[in-house]
């Protein structure tokens, strides 16, 4: 029997009206603009873009505002929006070597072409709350120094000269990059698909997994070969023109993790690599991604799969916070009938046990 229950409509309407009120908050305060969110909460905007897998700063800021700052809700909104748009095509792969670098550090080489460029980093701050930000104090313009006309060389290219590090990661010529948004997930999964999943994966989840590899659950001896943040051109081939044109620039964060590797039956001793590439400025995410990318290459490199971070199906199936939140949060929706059925079942089981116990007691009393 199926019984439809109605009656939530007025409550839902009023709940949404209340939500709109609470979102706006105290009306005596000015409302935040999208531009303010983009400019002043830029890293929250970046996180929404990265995990929604959609680069658009204004829309990500709108989503963050609409969600009252609940970033997973904002990611959900942006993911839902993307399904309403047609796809025009694919970009030419980004050339991160030609990035306009805003930050670049290496933990493996002190003096390297292009130098260590700290950029706008939280590193080396004392993590003390700054009372000057309670008010709207004027802020100094950044310091400037003539920029040398020196190429900011990739660290992986430096190491490659010695032949002690593996290459960038290739597939046979005929391999086409898979697309998670178009094809159902299947395991085992090639590295290109894994990277797509990790690039949109939940930062907290990947951070915890990356951390677990450092603590010994699938240890892989990482060094940050290089982190670079900056803008790259997005180019697309134009069939009507016969060549690629720029659509503009996006900011990305790239992490090249270099891992010591003592060799296995499949590969000689060398440095292996994990790769992280993320929309926006997010080096924590890019670093975590590269640690997990490397851990997930265990099978390819002939390592024992002993830790959660090396388990491809476990990691990739649980990395998406929109899927995760959907399944966890659906538990709060009405399960009245399921629960009534379970309640009846538990009552019956309890009744059976109690009846059996009374009979046992009766028999014992009779025997005494």
């Amino acid at each position: 029997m199926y019984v439809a229950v109605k009656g939530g409509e007025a409550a839902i309407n009023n709940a949404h009206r209340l939500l709109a009120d609470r979102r706006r908050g105290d009306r005596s305060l000015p409302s935040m603009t999208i531009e303010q969110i983009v400019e002043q909460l830029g890293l929250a905007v970046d996180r929404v873009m990265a995990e929604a897998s959609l680069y658009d700063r204004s829309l990500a800021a709108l989503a963050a505002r609409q969600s009252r700052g609940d970033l997973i809700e904002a990611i959900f909104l942006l993911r839902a929006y993307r399904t309403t748009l047609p796809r025009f095509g694919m970009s030419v792969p980004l050339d991160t070597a030609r990035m306009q670098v805003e930050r670049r550090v290496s933990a493996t080489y002190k003096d390297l072409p292009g130098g260590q460029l700290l950029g706008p980093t939280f590193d080396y701050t004392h993590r003390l709350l700054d009372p000057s930000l309670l008010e709207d104090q004027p802020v100094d313009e950044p310091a400037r120094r003539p920029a040398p006309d020196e190429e900011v060389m990739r660290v992986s290219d430096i190491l490659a000269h010695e032949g002690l590090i593996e290459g960038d990661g290739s597939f046979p010529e005929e391999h086409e990059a898979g697309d998670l948004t178009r094809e159902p997930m299947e395991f085992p999964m090639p590295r290109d698909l894994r990277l797509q999943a990790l690039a949109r994966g939940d930062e907290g989840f990947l951070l915890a997994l990356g951390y677990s590899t450092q603590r010994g659950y699938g240890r892989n001896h990482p060094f940050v070969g290089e982190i670079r943040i900056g803008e790259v051109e997005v180019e697309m081939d134009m069939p009507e023109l016969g060549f690629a044109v720029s659509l503009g620039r996006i900011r990305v964060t790239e992490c090249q993790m270099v891992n010591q590797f003592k060799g296995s039956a499949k590969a000689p001793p060398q440095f292996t690599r994990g790769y992280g590439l993320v929309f926006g400025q997010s080096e924590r995410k890019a670093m975590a991604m590269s640690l997990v990318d490397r851990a997930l290459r265990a099978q390819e490199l002939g390592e024992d799969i002993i830790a959660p971070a090396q388990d491809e199906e476990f990691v990739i199936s649980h990395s998406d916070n929109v899927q995760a939140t959907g399944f966890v949060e659906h538990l709060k929706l009405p399960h009245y009938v399921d629960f009534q059925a379970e309640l009846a079942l538990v009552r019956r089981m309890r009744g059976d046990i109690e009846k059996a116990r009374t009979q046992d007691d009766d028999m014992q009393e009779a025997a005494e």
Partner: protein
Amino acid sequence: MTAVREPALRPEQAARQRAAGLLAKATIAELKAAWDGLPQKPAAKPVRGPETGLVMVRGRIGGGGAPFNLGEATVTRATVLLPSGTAGHAQALGTSKEKVRLAAVFDALWQEEATQNWVEAELLAPVEDRLAAEDRQKAEETAATRVDFFTMVRGED
């Protein structure tokens, strides 16, 4: 299906590529100002769009290896036709339809001999200068955060 860039574009292709890239990076304010300053405003007919969609942005494994799908970006594109019969195309990141429609009009005007110099002088060159100045400023601000290592000499020599 790796997009291999043409080894060398012919000069007129390279010029068109530069113009398209600058039109994509022009702000709506720059495009509107150029339109307002245009001595003769053509009645451009929309052929396609302006329409907003997605482009799948690809990266390369390890930075230079096999391509993978990084995530999508919003893109708006438009094609217009001038009364003279010249078609203009434009495409740019973001969702601004008005910006891209104007960019398509200027793409068409740039292709016409009579207006090319005007578009170059009044729109493309100023946009190029602004971009170069912004890039220089950013590069200089970043350069000021470069670490100058020095060695501390300790003890007796």
